[in-house]
């Protein structure tokens, strides 16, 4: 097979998705309707921890237009508990139903549901349902969840567990004690990040139809993982998967928050019980109170340095508050594991000890959010490097250059293999892009004028393509590529479009292999009846797993087209080129056949026996389920496995100004230098990086899912959650380096999360740098004006306390 020569891969082709989205003709789940449909609303718990004594739905069904109202106890007769998403690491898994039966574990847990002739009647019905709770004492902090002084906690959420620990993992490598004993400098700190999450603009939406006569269930929904949803519905409802179809068209943002089945099962149940289609469009306030939450952790980290800045050893204790569950209702608990694994980052460090513990509390479930732990790792190591530099009198760039890996492949001490990388080059380029020298002069000048500007930088990496054993995210992806008799190309991909331009980039890959244009390629996803079993979109896997499955499948179709054309033109297939919609003889381009001519000849005129004699599967189609050769699930001698095969490199920088009178922070500029391997569509790559960066900015500056001291959610409106807007969002400049991955012929590495990973870090460090004259250390976010003022105040010698907020 000739080495890939690409015409479309690498070009910023205009997105195929855009036309329908700009016209308002998108295919979002709530845009669809079926005759006779009912509307579902969900009654959610108003208390954070309670036994359910009684649910009285009788008055709800008296309201005109209300067809059904069910409690968790009634629903239990008709369905099974939520299935497990991940089984690895001996996770403790709550046994729960989509509608709570005996207990509620968080304020917002679904307790009852109704279906009515209109959305409005459904809301009326909710108000008529009476629920009697026997409130239980709450567990709202890590301390309460852990228990004091080695004794078991007073309150345990899941009685059968005996404690509140869902994940408990320790790892040690090298001679950590020796590293610390020989250190010239040991720094330790407590680094905290608040609870916040993806907050996509489209909430969850479902249109469920159960056809009783055919025993067929069709579920249109907003999800990142249509196939796994189908498998989950089969388990919940006892239906064969072959009789379930999940449709996911356009999805209004996922960011990891739509990788589970939770309340989505409820409208399906109501459809089965009422024998009518049932629609559910989640209210924003319901999403805020019950949608997958993320982050919410604290590092207690110690780093040992040599006086020249060399990293000798690191110890970290990472503890996360994962709400009522991070494994079944939604699967976010492993992000903390990923955090613990990647703290060493792209640095030469072989003495490392980490413990990761995830505690349950009476808050909303804990799900994946862009970054999935790579951000958790980044903030810890980069903050300590920054502070190490200051303590040792070194430049923050210099301390990183001293420690960055520069010989590849390099195995991080926790296991992941860095196949290649350009970390040093990215950092060097960042320094140039920012013109740090000029910024330092400006900083000095500003201080003289009583203004406080600050610079923050960080190296980063984006591990992507998570392939987890014992999970529904098990590292494969499927595609079918079919050339029709008329020469048009159909690609069926298991990747899901969630705004990242799947239809376009996948079409570019197929177009290159088949010598046609992306316009000639139709990409279909999000239909489990049509598309081969795939794992959907998460972990930035579209340009690696998704594209490689298509690449291989397209190659199979390509081989057959070339062979047939070779027979028709009476030449050797190696003498043929496939480009511009034609197969032509190299050097004699007048001798050519269009894709349509070759395809029609294979299928019909004359047919396969003459065009592809003795060829197995003699029509121009290909199929591939791609797995990654760099993934390894059998542990090595140190117990380590390879589950993140690709690593993109990068370095990010921020320039901020802080007003110490008001606490206001203005992020003047962000910079990112990113190497994501081969870029399929540079414009799409840039869009992902900028979008991710602004999400990271929001998380650092003001986003917070806040609870009060009684476990009630305070941020119940989008306005109170505070998303970045046109006025607050900072500008970002991006530069690209391109070191192709050696793992695949395409050379891509994944980019979906790269934008967000280091942004909260650099904003924290830039603010710390700006407020250095005040002796401030930024150890927590969000950096709202009151917090910034408090940081300045607590750093004053007269008010300095042991543990600033």
């Amino acid at each position, binding site marked *: 097979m000739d080495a890939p020569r690409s015409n479309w891969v690498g070009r910023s082709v205009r997105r195929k998705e855009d036309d329908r989205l700009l016209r308002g003709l998108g295919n979002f789940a709530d845009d669809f309707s079926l005759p006779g449909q009912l509307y579902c609303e969900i009654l959610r718990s108003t208390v954070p921890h309670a036994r359910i004594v009684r649910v009285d739905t009788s008055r709800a069904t008296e*309201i005109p237009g209300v067809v059904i109202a069910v409690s968790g106890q009634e629903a239990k007769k008709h369905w099974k508990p939520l299935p497990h998403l991940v089984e690895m690491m001996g996770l403790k898994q709550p046994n729960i139903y989509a509608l709570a039966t005996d207990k509620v574990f968080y304020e917002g847990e679904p307790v009852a549901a109704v279906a009515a002739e209109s959305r409005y009647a459904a809301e009326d019905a909710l108000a008529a349902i009476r629920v009697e709770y026997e409130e239980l004492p709450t567990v709202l902090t890590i301390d309460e969840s852990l228990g004091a002084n080695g004794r078991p906690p007073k309150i345990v959420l899941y009685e059968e567990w005996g404690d509140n620990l869902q994940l408990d993992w320790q790892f040690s490598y090298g001679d950590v004690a020796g590293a610390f004993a020989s250190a010239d400098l040991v720094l330790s700190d407590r680094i905290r990040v608040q609870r916040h999450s993806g907050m996509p603009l489209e909430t969850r939406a479902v249109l469920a139809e159960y056809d009783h006569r055919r025993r067929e269930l069709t579920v249109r929904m907003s999800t990142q993982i249509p196939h796994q949803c189908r498998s989950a519905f089969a388990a919940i409802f006892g239906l064969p998967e072959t009789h379930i179809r999940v449709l996911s068209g356009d999805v209004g943002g996922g960011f990891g928050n739509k990788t589970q089945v939770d309340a989505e099962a409820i409208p399906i149940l109501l459809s089965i019980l009422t024998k009518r289609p049932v629609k559910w469009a989640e209210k924003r306030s319901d999403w805020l109170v019950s949608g997958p939450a993320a982050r919410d952790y604290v590092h207690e980290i110690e780093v040992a340095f040599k006086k020249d800045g060399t990293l000798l050893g690191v110890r970290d204790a990472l503890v996360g508050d994962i709400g009522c569950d991070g494994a079944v209702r939604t699967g976010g608990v492993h992000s903390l594991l990923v955090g613990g694994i990647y703290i060493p980052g792209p640095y030469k460090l072989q003495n490392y000890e980490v413990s990761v513990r995830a505690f349950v509390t009476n808050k909303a479930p804990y799900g994946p959010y862009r970054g999935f732990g790579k951000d958790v790792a980044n903030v810890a190591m980069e903050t300590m490097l920054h502070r190490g530099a200051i303590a040792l009198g070194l430049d923050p760039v210099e301390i990183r250059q001293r420690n960055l890996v520069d010989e590849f492949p390099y195995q991080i001490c926790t296991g992941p293999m860095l196949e290649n990388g350009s970390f040093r080059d990215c950092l060097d380029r960042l320094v140039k892009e920012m013109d740090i020298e000029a910024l330092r002069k400006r900083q000095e000048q500003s201080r003289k004028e009583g203004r406080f500007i600050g610079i923050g930088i960080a190296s980063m990496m984006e591990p992507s393509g998570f392939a987890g054993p014992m999970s529904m995210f098990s590292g494969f992806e499927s595609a079918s590529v079919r050339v029709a008799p008329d020469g048009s190309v159909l690609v069926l991909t298991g990747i899901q479009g969630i705004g990242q331009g799947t239809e376009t980039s996948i079409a570019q890959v197929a177009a290159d292999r088949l010598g046609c244009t992306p316009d000639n390629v139709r990409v279909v996803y999000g239909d489990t009846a049509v598309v081969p079993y795939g794992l959907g979109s998460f972990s930035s896997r579209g340009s690696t797993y998704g594209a490689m499955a298509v690449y291989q499948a397209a190659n199979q179709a390509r081989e057959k087209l070339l062979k047939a054309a070779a027979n028709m033109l009476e030449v050797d297939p190696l003498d043929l080129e496939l480009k511009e919609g034609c197969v032509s003889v190299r050097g004699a381009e007048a001798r050519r056949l269009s894709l349509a001519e070759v395809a029609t000849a294979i299928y019909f005129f004359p047919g396969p026996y003459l065009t592809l004699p003795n060829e197995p599967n003699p029509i121009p189609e290909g199929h591939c389920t791609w797995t990654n050769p760099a993934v390894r699930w059998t542990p090595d001698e140190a117990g380590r496995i390879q589950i993140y095969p690709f690593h993109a490199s990068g370095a990010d920088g921020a320039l901020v100004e802080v007003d110490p009178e008001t606490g206001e922070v203005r992020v003047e500029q962000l910079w990112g230098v990113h190497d994501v391997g081969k870029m399929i569509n540079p414009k799409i790559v840039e869009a992902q990086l*900028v979008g991710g960066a602004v999400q990271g900015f929001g998380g650092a500056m003001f986003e917070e899912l806040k609870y009060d001291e009684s476990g009630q959610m305070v941020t119940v*409106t989008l306005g109170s959650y505070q998303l970045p807007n*046109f006025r607050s969002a900072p500008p970002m400049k991006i530069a690209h380096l391109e070191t192709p991955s050696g793992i695949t012929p395409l050379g891509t590495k994944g980019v979906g999360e790269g934008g967000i990973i280091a942004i909260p870090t650099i904003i924290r460090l830039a603010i710390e740098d700006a407020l250095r004259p005040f002796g401030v250390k930024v150890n927590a976010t969000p950096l709202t004006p009151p917090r910034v003022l408090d940081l300045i105040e607590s750093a004053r010698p007269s008010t300095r306390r042991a543990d600033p907020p």
Partner: protein
Amino acid sequence: MERQSFPISVKVNGTEYRRQVEPRLLLVDLLRDELGLTGTHIGCEEGICGACTVEVDGEIVKSCLLFAVQADGASITTIEGLADGDRLNPLQDAFAESGALQCGYCTPGMVMAARALLKSCPAPSDEEIRCAMVGNLCRCTGYQHIIDAVKHAAEVASSGNEKPRVT
């Protein structure tokens, strides 16, 4: 309990519709559920996100904050009314050129807000765009490329050049 309903008449994208509606029916629900114009989206229920932005009698409004009965007799333009048959209008085209949309959920509201801005301010600065469109949230793009799109559309309109650039 009997629910009252009232007759209303609205013109949407040039077409007259007459419907009987409950007083509490939101304009956005009239457009989406009654009239099948699902291009206008719902992202919150408090008028913060702007995904539901439409034009009513020449002014943009958040249609989740208006009752259908309040729009009785009004002339409404939604996202579906912008394109000219097969061709996107120059503003929509500018969005595509500039990479100003990703998931597309905020996009109809964004385009309606940008259109209103360009009507009153044909050559807005970055700052004017940021201020005028602050009522529209986007979670995917980080806003930068939307600002580029609005400026590009303004340039195209002022140069009188209707032909879009092709990559």
